[in-house]
C-alpha cells in the first residue's frame, strides 16, 4: 500500500497505468485497473471540518522524541489499561548467557548501527527503566537488581482492559499459572520479528524446548481474552525473548494503523529503497531502516547459534508467570 502511494507521487506513475490499460489487456485486469483509476478521486473526498478542541478527549501528547522515535501503536483511551502476560527469565550478569548476549549485541550493532538494546542496559548506556510507563506493551524487560537482567517471553499480545476487567483478568492468569507445573525451556535460535504495525523490528531469541508448555499456558488464557473481546495469541506462536530493536520506515508514516491481521514474519521484502533510507538516516535524530540487511540474521545465527544451544548457556527454567497491567506487575509461581 505504501509503495503504491509512493508511486502515485512520482510523475510518470500514471503513464505506467496507461500502458497497462492497453488494448492487449482485455482480461480481468482491465476492470481492476479502471477500478484503480476511479479510486483516487474517491479518496480525494473533501474532508469534514475538524472537531473543536473541547470535543476531543483529553489525550497525553505522544512525542516520539522522548522514546527513541517510537510511537504509540494504540491510541490512548481513558480508563483503559494495557496489559500482557509473560514469563520472566533472570539472566545473571556473570552467566555465560549474559556474556553471549553482549557479544551478540555488539556484533549486531556493528552491522546495524541504529539498533537499540533491550535489557542490556550497561552497554547501551541508556538510563535504567526507561519510560516504562509509556510503553508497557513492549517487551521491555525490567531488571530486578544490578546483578541480573530480566528477559521476557510473552504469552499474550498487548491487551487492553477496562478498569473493572482487571481483577477478572488477573484471576484468569492466576488460575492458568496454578494449574501448570514449572518446566525447563531453552533458546533455540536467533530470529528477526516485526511488530504488527510494522513500525519496529526485533532481534529475538526463539524458544525451542518448553514451547508446548508455553503454548498450553497461552491457550489457557484464550477464553478470558475472548470474553473481553481481545485478540488471542497468534495461531502459530513463536515464543521468544527480544534483545534488541530498530525503528522501521513504517514508523514514519504518521499515525499507527491497526491492521487486524497478524504481520508476524521472518523477513521483509527485499525492495528496500536505499535512497529514502539514506535520506532519512542523515539528519533525522531517529534514523530508520526498511529492514535488517539481508544476511544479518543468518550471519548472527552462524556466529552465535552454536553457543546459544549449548546446554550450559541457553537453558533456563520457567518458574513464574507475570502479568503487567498498566504499571502494576502481578506474579504467580508455577507449581513445583
Amino acid at each position, binding site marked *: 500500500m505504501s509503495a503504491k502511494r509512493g508511486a502515485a507521487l512520482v510523475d510518470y506513475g500514471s503513464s505506467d497505468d496507461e500502458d497497462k490499460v492497453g488494448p492487449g489487456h482485455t482480461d480481468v485486469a482491465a476492470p481492476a485497473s479502471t477500478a484503480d483509476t476511479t479510486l483516487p478521486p474517491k479518496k480525494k473526498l*473533501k474532508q*469534514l471540518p*475538524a472537531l*473543536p478542541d473541547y*470535543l476531543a*478527549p483529553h489525550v497525553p501528547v505522544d512525542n516520539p522524541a522522548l522514546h527513541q522515535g517510537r510511537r504509540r501503536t494504540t491510541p490512548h483511551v481513558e480508563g483503559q489499561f494495557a496489559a500482557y502476560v509473560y514469563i520472566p527469565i533472570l539472566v545473571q550478569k556473570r552467566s555465560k548467557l549474559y556474556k553471549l548476549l553482549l557479544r551478540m549485541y555488539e556484533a549486531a550493532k556493528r552491522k546495524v548501527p541504529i539498533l537499540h538494546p533491550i535489557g542490556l542496559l550497561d552497554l547501551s548506556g541508556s538510563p535504567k527503566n526507561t519510560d516504562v510507563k509509556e510503553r508497557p506493551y513492549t517487551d521491555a524487560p525490567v531488571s530486578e537488581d544490578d546483578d541480573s537482567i530480566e528477559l521476557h517471553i510473552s504469552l499474550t499480545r498487548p491487551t487492553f482492559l477496562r478498569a*473493572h476487567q482487571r481483577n477478572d483478568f488477573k484471576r484468569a492468569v492466576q488460575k492458568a499459572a496454578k494449574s501448570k507445573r514449572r518446566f525447563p525451556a531453552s533458546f533455540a535460535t536467533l530470529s528477526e520479528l516485526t511488530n504488527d504495525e510494522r513500525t519496529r523490528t526485533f532481534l529475538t531469541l526463539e524458544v525451542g524446548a518448553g514451547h508446548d508448555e508455553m503454548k498450553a499456558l497461552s491457550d489457557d488464557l484464550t477464553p478470558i481474552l475472548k470474553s473481553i*473481546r481481545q485478540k488471542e495469541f497468534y495461531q502459530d506462536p513463536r515464543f521468544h525473548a527480544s534483545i534488541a530493536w530498530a525503528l522501521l520506515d513504517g514508523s514514519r508514516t504518521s499515525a499507527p494503523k491497526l491492521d487486524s491481521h497478524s504481520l508476524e514474519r521472518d523477513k521483509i521484502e527485499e525492495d528496500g529503497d536505499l535512497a529514502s533510507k539514506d535520506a532519512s538516516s542523515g539528519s533525522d535524530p531517529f534514523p530508520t531502516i526498511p529492514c535488517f540487511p539481508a544476511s544479518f540474521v543468518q550471519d548472527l545465527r552462524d556466529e552465535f547459534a552454536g553457543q546459544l544451544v549449548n546446554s550450559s548457556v541457553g537453558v533456563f527454567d520457567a518458574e513464574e508467570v507475570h502479568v503487567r497491567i498498566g504499571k502494576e506487575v502481578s506474579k504467580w509461581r508455577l507449581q513445583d
Partner: protein
Amino acid sequence: MGKRPRRVLHTRLWHRGLSVLASTTLYRLAAVMPSAVSQNPTLGSLTSNFPLTFPTPTPTTHPDLVSTKDLHREEDLLRNPFSFRHWWTAIQNVKEASAAEQKAEGPSDLTPEVAALLGPLSSPAARKSLQRQVYLYEAALTQFPTSFKLWKSYLQTRMSFVLGRLVMKKKAGGRKKFPEMREALEDEQEDLEQWEGGLDGIVGWEEWRLLIATFERALMWLPRMPRIWLLYLSIFNHPFCPAQVSHTHARRTYDRALRTLPPSLHGRIWARYLLWAEAKGGATTVAIYRRYLAVDPTVTERYTAILLAPSNPDPRPLEAAKLLLSLARKAARGEYTSPEGKSPYQLLTEFLDVVEQHAEEVGMDVPDTIDSNAKIAQAAADEEAASQQPAEQASLDGKLIRFAGPAVTTSNGKSVAPYDEDEDARSPRKLNVEDIVRKDGLEVYKDQAGRLWTGLATYWIKRGEFDRAKHTFERGLASVLTIRDFTQIFDAYAEFSESLISALMESLANPDEDEDEEDVKETEQELDAKMKEFEELMDRRPFLVNDVLLRRNPNDVQEWEKRVALWGDNDEKVAETYTQALATVNPRRATANFHRLYINFAKFYEEGGTKGEAEADLDSARKILDKATKVNFKTVDELAEVWCEWAEMEIRHENYDEAIRVMQRAAVVPKNTKVNYFDHTLPVQARLFKSLKLWSFYVDLEESLGTVESTKAVYDKILDLRIANAQIIVNYASFLEENKYYEESFKVYERGTELFTYPVSFEIWNIYLAKFVKRYGGSKIERTRDLFEQALEKCPPKHCKPIFLMYATFEEEHGLAKRAMSIYDRATNAVADEDKFEIFTIYIAKATSNYGLPATRPIYERALEVLPDRQTAEMCLRFAAMERKLGEIDRARAIYAHASQFCDPRVHPKFWQEWNNFEIETGSEDTFREMLRIKRSVQAQFNTEASYLAAQMATKQNGQETEAEATPADPMAAAERQAQAAGGWQGTCVRVGEAEHKRQGRGSGGTASRGAGQRGRDSHIGRRDLIACLASMEKHPSYGALSPYLPKYPKAAGALFQTYNDLQLAQQWTDLEIIELPGCSRCALRGRRPNTVTESLSTDWIRTTFQELGGPPHVYLAINTEDSSIVYYKISPGIVKPPL
C-alpha cells in the same frame, strides 16, 4: 342685476369714510341692505353718540337726568348721604324705571345691522338709562368707595351696557373646590362667559375704554377682590373686545392679577389665563404655558397636543418631543403620574410618534448622531474610569448650584435629576434619537423591543437615511427575544425594502428630464443591489427566527436541530452549528432529547456529511460519542441511548468486537449498587448501570454476537441488579430454551415468579406453566401439580381462571378426571364473580362429557346458589332444559318457578316466553294457569320495588327521555336531590310493627334478602334514570302526603316512599301517619295493621257449609293470602278417589 352697481357705490362710500375700520367690520357693513340706505349712518354719526359716561353725567351737564318726579329722591339722598340703603333703593328704582321705559319705547328706526353695531346702546332710552345709572352709582361711590357690593353691581351694570346680555348657562353638578389644573381647564372652558349682542369695539371704543377705566378705578379701591379681577378678565374674552386692549393690556392685566392676588387664588386666574393664551396662539401661548409648566407639569400633555395640533400654524415638534421625553422619563422614574392615565411606555410611544412624524425637526442627522454617540460612549467610559477612583467632593455640604435649565423645585430632600438638554424644552438642540431609544426604550421596556426598533428605523427612513435604517433593522433583528417583536421588525423591514425597490423602479420607469445615462445606470445598479438584498433577507428569515428562539432559550435542543436542518447540506455550517450547540447548551437545563444532538452529530461524521459526499470520519464520530458519554444528561435514558447508539454505529461498520467492548465499557457495575436510579442529585453516569434500556440492548447484542455463556452472564447481572422486568425474564428463559437449557430456563421462570408478585407474575406463571406442561407432559406429574399449586397459592381471584383451566386441562390429559373435576370445583369458588358463569359452563360441559347429564345436577344447584341473580336466571334456563332432556318435567317446572323470581316479565320477556313454550308443550291447563299466576305476582312484586322503576326506565329509555327532560324545572337541582335520594334508597327506615310483618306472602325465605341485594345492584343507574325515577315518584298519588318529608331527609327518602306505599297499598294498613324523628334524621310510620282472617276451619264448619248449600258434589274454598293471591281448594264430602 340692477342693484349691484348701487351696492358697490355704497361700499366705496363706506370705505372712504371708515378707513380705520377693521376688515371684519368692513365686511359686515358692506352687507347692509339697500333699504337701510335712506338712514345713511356714517361712522362719525355712530361714534358721535359716545362717550356717554365721561365726564360723569350729572344733572348740571345733562338736565334730563333728573325729572320732577325724582326731586323727592334727590332730597332724600341729600338728607341721608351716608345711608347705604337709601342709595341702594334709589339705584334699584332707577334700574326698574329705566327697564320699563326701554320696554315702552317703540321699535328702533335703525337697521338691524346698525343696531347690532351699537348693541345694548342702540336705543336712546338705553343710552339715557346708562347715564342715569352712572350718575347715581358714581354719586353713591363717592360716599362708599370701598363697598364691594356697590362696585360689583356698578361694574356689572356697566358691563351689561357694553358687553351685551350675559347668557346664563345651566350648571350641572358642583365644582371641585381645588381641582387639578387639567380638570379646571375643562370646567373653565365650559363656564366661559358668553354674551348676546354687545357694543362694537370700534364704534364704541370710547365706551369700552371707559369701562376698563372704571375697572381700574374699582381695583384701585378693592385690589384684593378676586371676583372683581375675574369680572375684569372676563371682558377680554368678549368677541368685540377692542384690539387695543385684548392683547398686551389683557396679558398685563392677567399678570397684575397674579401679582396682586394671594397664591391660593392663582389657580382660578391661571385657568382663565391658559385658556386665553390658547385662544391667542403663537408665541403668547408658548410663553404663558412655559411659565405655568415650570410650576405644574400636569398640563404638559395638553400643551404638547396644542403644539402639535394640525390647526396650529406654527407647530413646535422639538419642544413637544422634549416635553414628552421628559414626562416619559419622569413617569418611568415614578415622579410623574399622567393625569390622563397614560403609562410611561405610552408616553414614550407618543414621543416616538412625534419623532417619527417630525423626524427632520426633532432629531439629529447621521454625522451629528455619530458624534453624539461617540461623546456618550466617551462619557460612559470616563464615568467608568472615574467610578474606579473615589469621588472628589465637589462642595463641603454636598450642595451645588444649578447653572443651566429652568428653575426646579426640590421637595423633601430628593436629589434633582441632573440637567439634561434633551429634556429642556427651551434648548434648540436636536435629539439623539438613537441614544434615547436605546437608553429610555430598549433598556427599560424589553418586551416592547419590536415597536421601539421599528420606531427608530422609521425615524431614519423619514430622514431619508436608508442605510442607517437598514442597519437599525438588522440590529433589531439581531437583538430581540420574542417572535412577536421579531415579526414586527421583520415586517416593517420587508415593507421598507419593498417600498424602496418600488420607488427605484418607478424612477426608472419615469425618468426625470435632467437624468442622464449615467444616472439611469446607477439607479439600475442600486435597484439590482436592493433586489438582491431583499431576496437574501427573505431567505434569511428562517435563520433569523431561529436566532430569536435560540437567544430566548439557548438550551432549546429542538431549535438547534431546526437550525441544523436549515443549513441543509452545507457541511461546514452544519458542523459549526453542532459544535456551537454542544458548547452552548447546558445539559441540566436543556429541553428534551439533548443526546440526539450528540448522536446526530456523530452520525454526521460517520456518514460523511449530510449528504454523505465527504469522507466519513469514524474517529471523529467516536470522539463525539465519547464526549457525550461524559455529559451529565437530565435522564439516565439519554446516556443509555448514547451508548447504545455508539454500539450500533460500530455494528454498522462491522466492528462487532468493538461494539461489545463499547457495551462492556458502558455496563460497568460499581461496587456500591445501592444507588437510587431516580436520585437526581447523582450524575447520570453513576446511575447508568441501573438503566434497563442499556442492559436490554447489551443483552440483545450478546445474544446475537456473543456466546451462550456471555449472554447468560449478562442476563444474570441484570437479575442481580434487580432491574429486570417480566419481559426480560421471559426473554432470558426463552433464550435458554432455544439453546436447550430447559432446566435452567425453568429456573429463570422460578426466579421471575419470586421476583415479581401478582399481577406481573401472572404472565410469567402462565408462560412457565404452559412451557413446563409442553416439555414434560405427563412425565413429571407431581412436580407439575406442585407448580400449579404454587401458582394458585397467591393468585388473586381476578387472574386465576386461566391457571385453573390450564390445570384442569393438564389433569384431564395427563392425570385423573376426578382431580380435574375437583379442580373445576375449586375454581368455581376461587375465581372472580364475573368469571364464575364461564367456569360453571365449562365445568358442567366437562362433567356431562365425563359422567353424563345427571351428574351435573349438584353442579347446577351450586351454580344457582353461587351465581348472581341475572346469571342465575340464565343458568336456570339451562338447568331446566337439561331436566327436560332427562324427562324430568316437574323438576324443570320447579326450576322455572324458582328462576321466575329474578325475571321481571317486562325486562326478561325471553325467560317467560321460554317457560310459556315449555308449558304449552308439556304442561296442562292448570300448570299454565299457575305459570300465569306466578307471572302476575312477580310483576306485582317488581311494581312495588323501586328498582323496578329504574329497570323500566332502562327498557323504555327512549320513550321517557323527553318527559324526563321536561319535568324538572331545574334539572341540576333535581338530579342532585335525586342522587342523594338514590344514596339512601336502601337507607333504613324505622318501620313500626315490621317484626310482625315479615313478608309472608313472598315465594321463598331467600327472596327478601335477594330482592334487597338486587336493589343494591340496580341502584347503580345513570343520572338520566334517576331523574326519570324522580319524575315518576312525583306523579305517584301518595307523593302529596310525603312531599313535606322527602326533601328534608333525602337519604331516607327512597326508603320512606317505598315503605309508605307498601304499607298503604299492599299491606292495607289504615290510619297511616308520618312522624318525624329529627334526632335520627329519619321519619317513622305509625298505623294500624288490618286484621287478617287467620282463622282455622274445623271439619264441622265445612260440613255446615255443605249442608247450608244443599249438598253440592264439591265446593271450592278460596283462601286469600296477604300478597293478594288466592288459592282454591276443591273440597268434596266424604272420601273421594283422587283423579288419575
